[in-house]
């Protein structure tokens, strides 16, 4: 069996507004292997987030194909894609995206509960301890700082031991100190769990920490390089 986790082939996305059509992603092709990390960088409006959304099955491409863990996402229903996400995908968002009505512990438990797994609290507590929040289990998102909220979001992302983790500007809303803590945790856990990491960021310094960088511009993939060459 191949170790390719994500494969995108000639991926395009066009939005229609009345008579006009706007192509935000134009024939992008790439793949990601198990346990690797990559960053997608580019200026605002270059199509980074659209690409992330398509790769994670949050939307379907206008053209091209996406395979995630062998599942051809563009031919699946929304609910089937949701199932695939639950089984194989983790997310970390710029604005944390915690459910405001749930405690930190409950937020972390949700993905595993969705699978129908019982006693998910033990793992959730372990993960929250791993991100340094074992004393904040019963706190609601509004009672946590931005850094703490993002750590909860990370714990939730790793709760299902995902094969691939999509992170959209995970440090975008954090101060420097919190940002560095989060990045450290993200790469540590990612390494421990052998998860494939796909990171969307403006932050070149953060992107350099991944193994591969895809550079987007005007909806096209304009450059792809390994970070070793950049460092060198």
């Amino acid at each position, binding site marked *: 069996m191949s170790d390719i986790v994500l494969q995108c082939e000639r991926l395009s996305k066009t939005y229609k507004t009345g008579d006009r059509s706007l192509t935000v992603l134009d024939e992008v092709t790439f793949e990601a292997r198990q346990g690797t990390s990559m960053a997608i960088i580019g200026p605002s409006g270059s199509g980074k987030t659209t690409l992330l959304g398509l790769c994670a099955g949050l939307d379907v491409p206008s053209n091209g194909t996406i395979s995630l863990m062998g599942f051809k996402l563009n031919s699946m229903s929304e609910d089937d894609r949701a199932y695939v996400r639950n089984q194989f995908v983790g997310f970390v968002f710029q604005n944390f995206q915690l459910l405001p009505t749930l405690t930190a512990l409950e937020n972390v438990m949700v*993905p595993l509960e969705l699978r129908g797994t019982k006693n998910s609290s033990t793992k959730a507590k372990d993960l929250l301890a791993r991100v340094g929040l074992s004393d904040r289990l019963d706190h609601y998102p509004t009672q946590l700082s931005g850094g703490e909220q993002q750590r909860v979001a990370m714990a939730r992302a790793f709760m299902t031991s995902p094969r691939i983790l999509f992170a959209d500007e995970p440090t975008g809303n954090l101060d420097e100190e919190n940002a560095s803590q989060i990045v450290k945790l993200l790469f540590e856990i990612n390494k421990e769990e052998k998860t494939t990491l796909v990171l969307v960021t403006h932050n070149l310094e953060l992107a350099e920490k991944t193994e591969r960088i895809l550079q987007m511009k005007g909806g096209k993939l304009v450059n792809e390089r390994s970070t070793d060459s950049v460092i060198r």
Partner: protein
Amino acid sequence: MLEYIIKIKRVTKNIFQDAWVWKMAWRDGRHNLSRLFLFSASLITGIAAVVAIASLNYSLQDELNRNAKELLGADLVLNSSKKFDAEIFTAVDSTKQKIAGDADMASMVMFMNTKQSRLVKLTAMYGDFPFYGEMATFPTNAYQLVKTGKYAMLDESLASQFQVSSEDSIKVGNTIFKVAGVVTKIPGGGGLTSTLAPAVYISLASLDSTGLVQFGSRVGYSIYIKTNSEADTKSLIEKVKPLSKKLGFGYETVEARREGLGQGFKSVYQFFSLLAFVALILGCIGVASSVHIYAREKRDEVALLRCIGSSGWQAFNIYFIQIFVLGVVGSLLGAALGVGIHQVIPYAFQEYIPLKLDFAISIRAILEGVVLGAIVSILFTLLPLLSVRFVPPLTVLRADFDSGKIKSKSKWAAIILIVLFPILAAAYQTKSFISGGLFAIGIGVALVCLTGVAYLLLFMVRRYFPINASFIWRHAMSNLFRPNNQTRVLMVAIGLGAFIIATLNIIQSSLLNQVEFKGNANQSNTILFDIQPNQKEGVVKLIKDQPLPVNQVVPIITCRLKEVKGKSIEEIQRDTARIPEWALTREYRVTYRDSLIASEELIKGELQKFTKGKADSVTVTISEGMHEVLKVTVGDSLTFDLQGVPLTVKISGIRKVDWPKDPPNFIFVFPAGVLENAPQIFVAATRVDEPTQASKFQQTLVIAYPNVSLIDLRLILSTVNELFGKIGLVVRFLALFSIITGLVVLASAVINSKFIRMKENVLLRTLGARTRQITLITLIEYAYLGIFSSLTGMILSLGGGWILTKFFFEVEFAVNAIELLYICSGVVILTVFIGWFNSREVISTPPLQVLRKEN
């Protein structure tokens, strides 16, 4: 490249198997409990109205079934407008059955304590009526005293109106009776009957001494029979049936009385329950509107859940469970409130209902209410909740992402169910699909009209609002158009309540205007009847001596129909295309003259006439409407029985009669020269303006001519007023449910937009607005809302009132502007209060607290 596709094996669980959605519903709901409760509060009032009215209905029906015989007081009652023939007594066989009876008539009674007089229903009784149930009196021995012949009993309402006690006396005709006490309960009596015609009870033996029963007196006779068994009753009914047709009297069985009353209650129940149902529908619209906002706010959370693997149905189920549970809780609370109201109803409305109301809790009514509440809470929230299913997960990354128009079968199914529901529910209430359909159309039209008026009003206000108005007034106005403000829903809900109350008021004003005498200086307001021919001159003199005008002195001859178009009454009764029994067998009071009076207009043919010497040349005119009842027209013949003398006449014309104007008016008018020698009595009409003069005139008349009765039409005016007061109380009570529902929706809307309002206020404060200004803006905003809501109701009520007065009541449309203004003010004050009460936090929260919350 991957060369294989994995087929997905996703296990889908239904709502009952999926424990996670229940858990999530609780986790999410616990933070929104107060808000969700407010949604369900919109249901509470509607369900309370439904349960209270259904409980009352079931209590009444139970009471009817349990105490059917007490309603009649006997197994069988015979009624006649003339004395019963010996043949009837033979058939009844008083040796085998127990018999009681009475004679009743309209008569003047003078209260000796105050020397005031009033027209009453005089009932002269004999025997031991009632055989079932009880005649409750105060003091308890009053009935026994009446049987001795020197005493009279009064209906409680009459005694209290004229402050009569057991120490006082009343003069009935020529006789003075001591007051034995008051009647607090009598089988078949009480209720509205005693409002319209309060009764005085004496013994039959003493009736003659009053001298009231003279020629032409209209006396009703009844015989009450108690049989020994059901079988006896049946056989007696079989004996009475043929006699009833032959001798022209009516009879009533326990079953007939029960059915009649039951049918009456049922009609009233259906009308009120449909009003309650409207309140419920309004509540549902309020809930749907709130849930729409709630679902929109939950968009981000749903997007995230979908992102991490929840299916669309799972997301839907989370909120569906919350709304369903709250619908049930709201319904239970509504049912509890309804039961509470039902406990109070017997105190409030007992005097209008001729049955003893109990407080028993009706499980059926509660179940119906809860089931109805659960169904409507689901139905009306389905549409906004279904939108949750289609929230795209990409919203997590792009908040403004819109997946475009969604075509969904479930959405269409929900729309169809919502349309079908009012039809089915109304059909269930009225037990008829046609009525259900008509009601649903009615609701639809009413809501469309209300919404249309609300839209138009808002459009006009927005368009023509003075741009030079001060900042506070302009800002308050613009607040009405804030997104999620539910202004139109509120205008419809509150407007409907105002509409019901104002329409009732317009009908009341129009009807009262009809019997109001201020406008026409010459119109009679006092009618004297039962004047014997030998009293005519004296009565006219008495009127003139007061001094009062003698507007009319009209002869009256009583007669019955013998033949219509050459066919005998018996033949017509056997016909299949029947003329109503009452029209054939009733006693007609006719007059004679050769001209029309002010209240009449000839609409077809010519006036009644008689050529002297030609007995077969007599023609009469008939009033419009009655010719349709009797199925006759110009040229048709009628034969009257004029106290034993047959007289055949032809109809020469049809008169349109304005009945309340210039009374007395007549169905048949004969020409002069025909009936002058027939036994007759006279009716005189006059006008008395001052109450003191009226009282003095009545006193003089009762003393001089005790058998002459007097109808003070102003008394009818006050009776109509009183009647409306009672009916109006019930209708207003139900309209209040609609207004309360509107106010709950208002409170919910204020709370829904609380944070937006807080942010706006912070901005205003930052720009220098003072608390007083912010408070003013809030108050003015709700004043606008109250004004527009009540205006919506008023505009429609003017239209609805006009249609009802013109086509249903057929009276002149009249509006009491001052009273409508009171209604408007009441609605505005309530709206401002509720709006302000729920906005206190918004007004008083310090800016920093809001900014922190936002950050």
